[in-house]
Structures are given as C-alpha cells and as structure tokens.
C-alpha cells in the first residue's frame, strides 16, 4: 500500500445543461476514515462521486488528490481510485473469475491468489465460473465490490454499494469497507440504508439541493442528525 491519500474538493460546482447539480462544495476525505455522503434524491451525491472518480470534470472548482489537481492525474494515480457506481461495470458474458482477472490485468495485479481469495471473501467461490450475466443483483453487487477492492485502492468510492444485497451480504460488505478503511483507504459511502451507514461511518457530509449542509465527525445519532439537516 502506497502513501496515504487525502482527497479534497475545493469550491466544486457541476452543471448539467442549465441545472446546477452541485454548488460550491468544499469537502475533505481523509485516509482511514469512512465518510457517509448523505442527502435526499437529487442532492448531487452521485455527481460528487463522479467528480471524485475523475470520470466527470467539475464545471467550477478543483478536486485535489494530495497536492495534484484531478485533471493532471496520471495513470498510476488513477490506479489508486476504486469506484462502485450505479451500474455494475462488469462484462456479462465473462465469468466472475474472468471479470476479476481482466481488471487485475489492467491494474498490473501479479498475485494469482488475490482473485481467488477475493472471490471467497465475497462469498462467490461457488459461482466463480458462471457468467456474470446470470447473477442476481446481489451477487453482481458482491462481484463489483470485489472488482473495486481488487487493486487495494487508497480512495474507495462506493455509490449505493448495498443495492440488492441481503442482510448477510450487507454485513459482509460493511465488514469489507471497514477493513479497507483500517488499511488506510479514504472511503466515501453513499447509501439509502441509513442505519447500515451509521454503523461504519465516522465522518459525514450532508448535501441538499447541491449545497453542503454539514460536514464533520459523526457525533451522536447520525440518523437524527440527518433528519435535522435535511428536513429541518
């Protein structure tokens, strides 16, 4: 694992057509912490995740990875980002193992046991050689989590990673996320499941209508805090 990575959004706005999805957001994501990114629908959560992943560019403001602005990141720096988006980013005709092996090759992952151990970790060892197209949403979600964790990212962006997971799957996913943070990754988590989020988040960023409402350490009851900021 390389040096810890602090990611900072400085006055970031993003426009789609004529609508601001995100307005002047400042935020900092620090190594070893799980930040819950909360907000009602249309608050700009996924847009912020897209910006942090570098797949989107800010219309105003800059995102810094350490000291480097996002648009000047090189390939090696991109390799430090792990991203789970709304779609699974998998290849349907390939098996679970082949999917992971392929992404491993892209990331220059040399360790052959890594894929097998990750598959076991997410509980897919029995389905490792079945095409991903046949997977239930929950299984695909486990696989996509494994895909994001495969290169041991220093910034882990999880946009609704718990979608379709059963209770056991949620517990497993939370455990893996916590583990990644313990190993030093900065984790950003977006989820509708507030109670699950509350169990692992130690920091919170609340957005409403594209603006930042609150950022800071979780103190007391996260759920109550959220309702106070958003509904109050």
């Amino acid at each position, binding site marked *: 694992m390389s040096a810890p990575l602090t990611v900072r959004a400085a006055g970031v706005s993003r*426009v789609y057509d*004529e609508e601001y999805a995100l307005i002047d957001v400042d935020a900092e994501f620090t190594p070893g912490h799980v930040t819950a990114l909360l907000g009602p629908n249309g608050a700009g959560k996924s847009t912020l995740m897209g910006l942090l992943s570098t797949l989107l560019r800010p219309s105003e403001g800059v995102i810094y990875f350490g000291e480097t602005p996002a648009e000047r990141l090189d390939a090696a720096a991109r390799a430090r980002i792990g991203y789970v988006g709304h779609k699974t980013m998998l290849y349907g005709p390939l098996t679970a193992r082949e999917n992971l092996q392929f992404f491993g090759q892209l990331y220059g992952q040399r360790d052959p046991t890594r894929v097998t151990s990750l598959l076991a970790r997410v509980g897919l060892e029995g389905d490792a050689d079945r095409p991903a197209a046949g997977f239930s949403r929950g299984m695909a979600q486990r696989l996509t989590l494994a895909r994001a964790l495969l290169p041991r990212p220093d910034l882990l962006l999880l946009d609704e990673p718990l979608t379709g997971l059963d209770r056991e799957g949620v517990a497993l996913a939370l455990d893996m996320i916590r583990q990644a943070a313990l190993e030093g990754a900065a984790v950003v988590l977006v989820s509708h499941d507030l109670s699950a989020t509350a169990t692992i988040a130690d920091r919170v960023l609340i957005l409403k*209508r594209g603006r930042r409402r609150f950022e800071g350490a979780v103190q007391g009851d996260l759920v109550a805090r959220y309702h106070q900021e958003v509904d109050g």
Partner: protein
Amino acid sequence: MKNKLYLAGLALLSVALFLAHWLVFVYVPTEPIMGVVQRIFYFHVPAAWLCYLGFIITFIGSVGYIWNRSPRADALALAGADIGLVFGWIVMLTGPLWARATWGVWWKWEPRLTSMALLVLIFAAYWVLRRYGGGTEGVRRFGAVLAIFGAPNIAFVHVAVKKWRGDHPGGVVGGGLDPDMRLAFFICLAVLQVLFIYLFIERYRVIRDEEAIGALRRRLSRLKGR
C-alpha cells in the same frame, strides 16, 4: 454611434453586392464558348473558396476545443461549419447547373467535384450531429473529432480521384481570362469575402449569446438555490 456605423456598413455591403451583380449581369463580356452560363462562376468559385474557409475555421476551432475545451473555440467551429455549409450548398447546386449546360451532364466524377461533394457531406454530418445529437459535452467532443478527421480526408479523396480519372484537362475557369472578366471576378470575390466575414461575425455572436444565456440561467438557478 456604434449602431449608425453598423448600419452604414450594412448599406455599403448592400451597394457592393449590387455592384457585383451589375458586373456579372451587365458589365462582363459573354464567354464565347460556354455562353452566358459561364457567368455562374463569378459567384460559384468564390463560394467554393468561402466553403473551404468556413471548414478551415471549423477545423481550427475543433483542434482548440479538443485541446482545452474552450467554449469560444467550439463556437468558432460551429459558426464556421454553418457558414461553410451555406457556401458549400451553393457550390454543389450551381456547379451541376453549369455542367449540364456546358458538359451536357449534371455531374462528373472528377477530383475537384468529388472532393468538394465529400467535404460537404462530412460537414453536413457534423451539422446534423450538432443540431440533433444533443447538446452534451460528449457530442461537442464527437463533433470536434469528426471535424479534425474530416479535414485531411479531402487530400486523400483528391489524390484517389485524380489517380482514378486522370487529371481533368484545363482549369475549370479556363486559362487566359479577359481583363474585364478578371476584374469582375476579383471584385465579386472581395465582396463575397466581406459578406462572409459579416455573416460569420453575426453567427458567432449568436452562438456566444446563446451560451451567455445558458450561463445566466445557471447563475439564476444558483442564486435561487435551484
């Protein structure tokens, strides 16, 4: 004051255009072989040049846009394509009218004609893309790549058709222009060039204004907190 100057300029341009028509229809002698239809060339040939010029601007703007995503470069590219296409269609429509009355056929697969036709087709595709493809950033990028790919294509088409057909005998205008004809041609060229510049500035301004409107709307939505 500024408005008056603008109007005076427009009046001058109108007078110049009138003069150009007078030259074409009254002043110049009739070409003995092709007859009156040769008079198409006083506007046809400058139109071909202006079509090229419009697309060159699109190419330059597209390179600029791909490089640093500057909205100004994109507006330049779009305005260039719009105007280039107007003159392109003029060339493509008046050319066959001349050809039918001179060669007896509407069209020949000759290097100059073929490359012009493909150039117009490529930038017509660019226009369709920009008009109907949706106004997203991805479409602007797509358009820019298309324009960048399209420009050098013309060299290839030209070489290919030249190899295929052999060089067409003589220039299209014909050598040894009568001095009156030459004078009329260059005056028409100059007048149309000015018309091009005027139309280009107007078009560019319209596109920039539309962007400014978008920016204002965004600022408004931002002030209102969406």
